């Protein structure tokens, strides 16, 4: 009994450690003081001035464009890569598999510099789309690794059964394989989106005209002082992300429940 209470206290401390800074950020987004560290009473002023701050809003828009488009592309490519690696033996398979880890292992700053040199060699003008391409590069690895992990616990006999029972390969994929690996795909996509939305180093290298994302915007404000508007926009993003994760979890649970019921 005492041990359980000790465990609960320990868990509470861990959660406090993880979430207290975020809670403080949310609380301070309602702080009247301009100074970030002193509480002077509640206000919605920062949300109002945020609504009028064109720079931050454009940055949020850019971040969402980059986050959503690179996540979609990376999820499709990454899933296909994971499927290829997970079920086919081909020449250079091990090499390809190791290659996947490269964008995760090499320092961001090296990847950023490499990408900008690459774009330079192609004479590709830097823009928001070069940011999207760069984000796809490292997001593909994350998706592929997560989906591959899901595939490794995948029971191939289910697919074989479907094929035996006369399903075409495409419908086997759609109705058997895809639902089974869907949690992995969704997890990979969420991971991609999260990493994309807060990437600073690589983005700062490859962003072109009009491609300021939220992290770049926040860094550029450091010289003149970060305003509480940043707390407000972070709180809103947090709310959106939490809503997304909850929705994803609900969606994930549904097919499994249906399967169990029938």
């Amino acid at each position, binding site marked *: 009994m005492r041990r359980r209470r000790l465990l609960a206290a320990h868990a509470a401390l861990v959660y406090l450690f993880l979430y207290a800074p975020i809670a403080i950020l949310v609380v301070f987004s309602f702080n009247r003081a*301009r*100074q*970030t*560290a*002193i509480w002077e009473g509640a206000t919605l002023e920062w949300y109002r001035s945020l609504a009028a701050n064109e*720079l931050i809003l454009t940055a949020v828009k850019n971040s969402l464009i980059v986050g959503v488009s690179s996540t979609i*592309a990376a999820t*499709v*490519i990454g899933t*296909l890569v994971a*499927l*290829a690696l997970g*079920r*086919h033996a081909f020449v250079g398979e091990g090499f390809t598999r190791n290659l996947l880890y490269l964008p995760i292992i090499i320092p961001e700053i090296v990847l950023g510099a490499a990408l*900008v*040199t690459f*774009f*330079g060699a192609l*004479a*590709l*003008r*830097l*823009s928001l*789309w*070069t940011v*999207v*391409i760069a984000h*796809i590069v490292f997001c593909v690895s994350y998706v592929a690794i997560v989906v591959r992990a899901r595939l490794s616990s995948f029971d191939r006999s289910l697919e074989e059964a479907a094929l035996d029972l006369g399903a075409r*390969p*495409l419908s086997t*994929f759609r109705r058997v394989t895809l639902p089974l690996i869907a949690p992995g795909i969704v997890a990979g996509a969420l991971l991609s989106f999260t990493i994309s939305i807060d990437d600073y180093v690589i983005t*700062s*290298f490859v*962003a*072109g*005209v*009009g*491609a*300021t994302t939220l992290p*770049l*915007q926040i*860094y*550029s*404000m*450091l*010289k*003149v*002082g*970060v305003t509480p508007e940043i707390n407000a926009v972070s709180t809103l993003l947090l709310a959106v992300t939490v809503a997304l994760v909850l929705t994803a979890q609900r969606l994930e649970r549904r097919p499994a429940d249906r399967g169990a019921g029938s």
Partner: protein
Amino acid sequence: MTGRRSVVAAALAASLLAAGCRRGVEPPSPGPGEKRLNVYVWSEYLPREVIDGFTKRTGISLRYDLYDSNEAVLEKLQSGVADYDIVVPSDYMVRILIQLKLLRPLEKTRLKNLGNLDPAFLDKSFDPKNAYSLPYVWGTTGFGYNRTRAQGSTDSWAPLFDPKNRGRILMLDDMRECFAVALKFLGHSLNTTDPAILRQAADLLKRQKPLVKTYNSSDYENILASGDVDYSHGYNGQLAKVVARDPRRFGYVLPREGATIWMDSVCVPARARNVESIYAFLDYILEPEVNASIVNGISYASANIPARKFIRPEILNDPAIYPSEAALARCEFLEDIGEATSILDEYWTEVKAQ
């Protein structure tokens, strides 16, 4: 069976990549009849009304991005594929950009308002004869202090070396700026290359280190404002914001021994493409009224003489923004000190590693 599936996969991946690339290659250059200008500038350096006024007057649409360090400008211009037409780097970076041939020489005959600039801010060693750059704003590196905590005289660098202020001092995390403070306090030029004098300065900084709470170049003004330090070395513009919010509690000092003077300049990247728009913009920001609205909007001094008529008196008469000529005469620009840089590097490592 599986063979066909991988063909489908490959085709899908290829078409996706192609779609991504096609959008990437799409030239960001202006469409027919549309004039554009892409500006890359420090945060809070270009007031909204100046941008709107420019577009209204010329029909040129101005897009701008913000950066937080000079190195960001260097990286973008070195990539060779950034579409910026105007950048605003600091003095030492102008020198580097010129050396790397990343800037385009200015055709000064195209600027009819060039005469508005104060000759005292022209022809500096980082860009002789202003072949590549024009002064945008300038300022000094002094210190901000908390009036309620400071004792004794505050018109000198002395409080930053006073053991009484142990743990209440913040210094910029910047080698040249810290050495400039030590050298000026010892009564030398901040561009001295004499190894014996540099050694003395390094020893002074080493003795100062136990008194320093932190070395910080990004949000030092907030640290001063929150009361965590009483003295903060820093750029006048950033400290001025703290002073303006609570002038009874905070002050800015340009020490009597002298200090660094810095300048950010407008330059045109070598690969800039919207040439007509560039000269329209440069001439526009040199106009007295426009220049004054920049100064009024961002609280940094400009080098434009006729603009002073239109600058708000509280800015023009603020010695932290527009210091007296006598005070200014004791300030120096940071020059390239060549070989001595490596000596400073070594000494700075000693200071930081202590």
